[in-house]
């Protein structure tokens, strides 16, 4: 549990359902969690338990049918289009199971894209050099400094995921949301990625990671277990 002053992200009574033919599939049934600044939280659950849906709602990629999500005390539902985009681009960094890198861009460009997305043409011209420097630093931190000119399909799964993490960190977000970041990797590579997250956490980064893997989840400081759309354990 988290002190309310230190809370970065919280949600109350979040419900979400999807239409399944004539019926309705309830994925989340009144979920409420609070995440403190600097915490490394793993949301664990079986496939279909609603953990990815919860993460998408927390990151404003999706909206709940019912309930509220607060970021730094502000209700995300009240954000307008511009503020939502700013939230996604600057406050939060996403890491996906399938990396989701753009094949047409090089490793460096994929990382820079996060900064470009938040800059106007003029703004980009003024911050281009510093952005490139930061992207290079991040890639070096991820052990990819030799791969900056490569394209995603020329990298291994672990390398691609590290590029995705570098991209997520590019705008120095307050929160990293990772959706099964090791789900598509072998255990050794997955452990490597977990180590990266642990290092980020020890540097003060807030991380919320969704995983079905108990071993990976155990690497986080706090594990929230989700079963049938409800929190079973925290």
């Amino acid at each position: 549990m988290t002190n309310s002053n230190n809370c970065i992200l919280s949600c109350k009574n979040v419900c979400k359902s999807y239409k399944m033919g004539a019926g309705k599939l309830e994925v989340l049934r009144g979920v409420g969690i609070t995440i403190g600044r600097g915490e490394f939280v793993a949301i664990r659950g079986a496939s279909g338990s609603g953990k990815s849906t919860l993460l998408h709602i927390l990151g404003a990629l999706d909206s709940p049918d019912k309930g509220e999500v607060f970021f730094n005390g502000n209700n995300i539902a009240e954000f307008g289009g511009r503020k939502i985009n700013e939230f996604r681009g600057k406050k939060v960094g996403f890491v996906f199971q399938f990396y989701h890198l753009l094949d047409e861009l090089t490793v460096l460009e994929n990382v820079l894209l996060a900064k470009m997305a938040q800059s106007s043409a003029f703004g980009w011209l003024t911050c281009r050099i510093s952005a490139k420097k930061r992207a290079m630093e991040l890639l070096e931190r991820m052990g990819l400094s030799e791969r900056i000119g490569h394209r995603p399909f020329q990298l291994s799964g672990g390398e691609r995921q590290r590029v995705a993490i570098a991209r997520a960190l590019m705008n120095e977000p307050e929160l990293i949301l990772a959706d099964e970041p090791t789900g598509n990797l072998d255990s050794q590579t997955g452990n490597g990625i977990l180590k990266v997250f642990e290092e980020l956490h020890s540097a003060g980064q807030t991380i919320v990671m969704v995983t079905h893997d108990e071993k990976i989840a155990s690497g986080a400081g706090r594990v929230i277990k989700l079963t049938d759309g409800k929190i079973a354990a925290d």
Partner: protein
Amino acid sequence: MYDIILPIRFFLRRRITILAVLAVAICVFTVVVVMTVMTGLVKDYTQKNHDFYGDCIVWTDSLVGFGMYEEFIDELQKTDFVASASPVINSFGLVQMNFGDGSAALTLMGIDIKRHIKTTNFAQTLYYRAAAPELAFVPEDENLSGCVTGVDLTTERTKRGTYIQKTYVPSYSYTITCFPLTPKGAIVKTGTAMAANSKIFHYSDNSNSGLAKVDSSVVYLPFEQLQKLCGMDTTAKRAGAIFIKFTKNSNITVCSAKVAAMWRQFTADNSNFALADLFKNVSVADWKTYRRDTIAPMEKEQIMLILLFLLVGLITVFIIFVIFYMIISRKSKDIGILKSLGISQTGVVRVFLHLAFMVGLCGSAFGIVFALAFLVNANRLEGWLFAQFGFQLWNREIYAIGEIPHNAGAFLLIIVAVSAMVACLLGALVPTLGAAKMKCVDVLRVNKL
């Protein structure tokens, strides 16, 4: 900046964009080539008509003609907008060729050579007398009466359409017979028989006006001699038309209207003239109106062609729509990524519209470059096809078309390029708006991949 870098990368690294560029380039190529050739032909034909008839014509369709033409020409010469005017007789006659066994009813055109070469480009149509056009009706034997024939009446052509002109003036002669008409339009009779005036003319040159009908059926005679043959040299001499050339930079329509007003005034002032009744059959018009019957169908064909090319434009829009639909379907994951990075709907629209613009720009550029390369070499290519396979776009033995028009105007190129780019933007608009509305969570969800 992403909205510039991403389209460039998509453009350079996606093979499907090559298809889109190719589709646009083919459409642009087709439009530029066909419009250039068609516009060139129409322009060439109208220019030849203008050259042949001058700027304005005062004419009657009656073979009787009208009188007081010299007085009216004097009036015209007093104005500041008429550069020259030339009386003309248009008639028909029986022409017996004395160098073969042929005889034919042909159009006879009587011209006052000195005034006619100032009013029209007749001088430039001559072959042997091109350097001294005022001697056009002077045959080898200067004591004889000369005539100029339409080039197709006396000169053979190669299959490529080049006239085989002799190095000397051939000694052809023609017996030309006319049936004179009274001012009332009746055939002049001697006793109970029809009167007929005949005279032998000797070939002095041929005229290549570029107007197929003229070049294959007209024999030019000295004005006064044809006037005599047609019985139009009575006390009140008559002509069939007056060709008028205006001074440089004159507005032809405005000046033609002035000539028409002058003619009305002139006929009113001379209503007591013995042959004043003939004035009623006289019309005044600028050259384009006068030749409307032949020019209008060509212009109509050109308009039809433009309408057909609008359909080509619609097809381009549809092709781009399909290709962009495919691109966006394949890129739905990327759109989800962009949105997860905080790129707005308008940002996504900008990315794909910039891509469409690049497709339009490159497609237009390639299409125009290939079209210009093709047009520059079109005549050479046709020559080669003719030499190898006997293929010609137009049979030059039949059509009065020299070379294939190949000068594409800058205006046409700009219009086509801009239209192609607009077509690309329109074609890409619907799929792009669809892309902008995609919910990133829908396309990024694992079970959707």
